[in-house]
């Protein structure tokens, strides 16, 4: 993972509530053993019609959405399936942060592991962002704040450990592997092994 301190980008808005990971990455693309190239399937059934032609009304297909790196979504984004393919697809497509009032637990955790910053924000800021697509905002990962176009900083909660991993570009596996001696000692001390 690349070290990440701040993300500055225009936003793209998908205002629907409860967008599930089956929408983000439809199930029929799950039969893959590859570790890349997930971006094409992102929101496939919302982006394309049955013949594969782009649906012009869909937010990601509008010309002004090109290059947007921050997705602002309705409540409870990423609910449903645990498929990490949803986070991979957003990442591969170029989305680097997702903002909502609430983000489902498993997706939240998957996002962090892929350098995709999940931001849970207050309702008032969220409402403003939903009604102002395309504004340039900044996510200050180190400072735990969203910086709005007028310079106002809105704090969001970020786990110190997750922040450390994002900012240093380190993954959790390295940390877990470094703790193997404690894990082994714990296993030995456990009643019944």
């Amino acid at each position, binding site marked *: 993972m690349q070290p990440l301190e701040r993300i500055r980008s225009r936003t793209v808005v998908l205002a629907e509530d409860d967008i599930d990971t*089956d929408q983000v990455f439809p199930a*029929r693309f799950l039969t*893959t053993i590859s570790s890349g190239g997930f971006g094409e399937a992102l929101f496939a*059934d919302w982006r394309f019609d049955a013949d594969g032609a782009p649906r012009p009304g869909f937010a990601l297909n509008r010309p002004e959405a090109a290059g947007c790196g921050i997705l602002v979504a309705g409540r*409870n984004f990423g609910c449903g399936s645990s498929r990490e393919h949803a986070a991979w697809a957003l990442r591969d497509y170029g989305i680097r942060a997702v903002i909502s009032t609430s983000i489902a637990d*498993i997706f939240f955790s998957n996002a962090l592991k892929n350098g995709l910053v999940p931001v849970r924000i207050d309702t008032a800021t969220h409402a403003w962002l939903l009604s102002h697509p395309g504004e340039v905002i900044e996510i200050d990962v180190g400072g735990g704040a969203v910086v709005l176009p007028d310079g106002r900083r809105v704090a969001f909660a970020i786990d110190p450990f997750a922040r450390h991993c994002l900012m240093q570009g380190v993954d959790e*596996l390295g940390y*877990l592997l470094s703790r193997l001696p404690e894990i082994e000692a714990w296993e030995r001390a456990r009643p019944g092994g």
Partner: protein
Amino acid sequence: MTALSMFDKIWRAHEVVPESAEAPAILYIDLHLTHEVTSPQAFAALRARKVPVRRPERTLATLDHSTPTEAQPIFGGVPIRIESAARQVAELERNARDFGVELLGLGDARRGIVHVIGPELGLTQPGMTIVCGDSHTSTHGAFGTLAFGIGTTEVGHVFATQCLLQRKPKTLAVTVEGALAAGVGAKDLALAIIGRLGVAGGAGQAIEYRGAAIRALSMDERMTVCNMSIEAGARAGMIEPDDTTFEYLRGRPRAPQGEARERAIEHWRALAGDDGARFDGEATLDAGAVEPMISYGTNPGMSLPIGGRIPERGDESFRQALRYMGFAPGEALAGKAVNVVFIGSCTNARLSDLRVAAAMLRGRRIAKGLRMLVVPGSQQVKQAAEAEGLHSVFTDAGAEWRESGCSMCIGINGDTALPGQYVVSTSNRNFEGRQGQGVRTLLASPATAVAAAITGQVTDPREFTR
């Protein structure tokens, strides 16, 4: 000493390193279940790092998600039709071999949906931590385990270290008093609970289901309730183990036997929450008020008692859901035409579900033009059902009887409905496109599914069960 809930006890017993402000807990995982869809990239990560699967004996792999449900590609040497699915199956076979992980492969009589076989084999035991790269891992909580779904990166973490980094979730007690009425099943209760909590009501929480109505449920029914916890957004759902649990485990091949069983039961009983244990949140429901439920929208929270009418809501998400479903506010669901009925999935494809379905279908035929697919949860369920003659009831009625797997619950093995069709399904998700592009899913119990199969329309199952 503080009074501890069952969740607290299980959590504490698995903390290798407790959480701190700076870092999450290192949580030990007793049992890791894995399947062909969410494991390939995790195995690839192990290869890239040159790390082995640390505790293969705590790991079990099966083939269920993209696996065909026709007999020939399973047993007959006919290749799997979908090439990418065939590659996934072959990849898990290779990974299991290379990393020394036990795989219940295509022809294995114990193969089945990952959340059906864990309990069936006796691998799922009270007090354990259990994970799988699948959100319905909450199913195993029916045995008094802490069981939750993880992403593929975390699958790799468990392979490599048998541990996960986790922040402790909050706890929510859902108490269900009273008794379910005749003709009302565990699936109806699960949908009613989600209706109460909302699809995000359980977010960040581990639910403990309790109360007289929960105690009265069989293990199969408890699994149905815990299975759906994720549809309320919860990380996990759990039920205190009791004699029903211990009886279920008796004689299962991977469960302790004899003296070891006696010792284990003593330990399992001690998992019960202490008197006065506190939960972060509480909700209560009266089981007697629950009616047969059916979903009308595109998430499991959008469900109704079967005699109800679709509500009116002004927001765009709601309107979009109804547009997709082809329904309008104020409409009754009863009487709506149904094209396909699916009995299957880790929610409702255990032997007791098939018995309920067969009892209603016996001597009847499915409606003309309707397609009905019955997919047992595991090969063992299939064999047991056939030993009772249930398969003939289904095929005589005009239904298809298949090999086990996820099948039309997720529709990636080729078992899908057609765009625009209505499917009454005993699975757990009615998301857009879940059962095929443009397919409209109505979630219901096995009884309600069979009622729809007989009449060809959404029908109250109590008309058949009296």
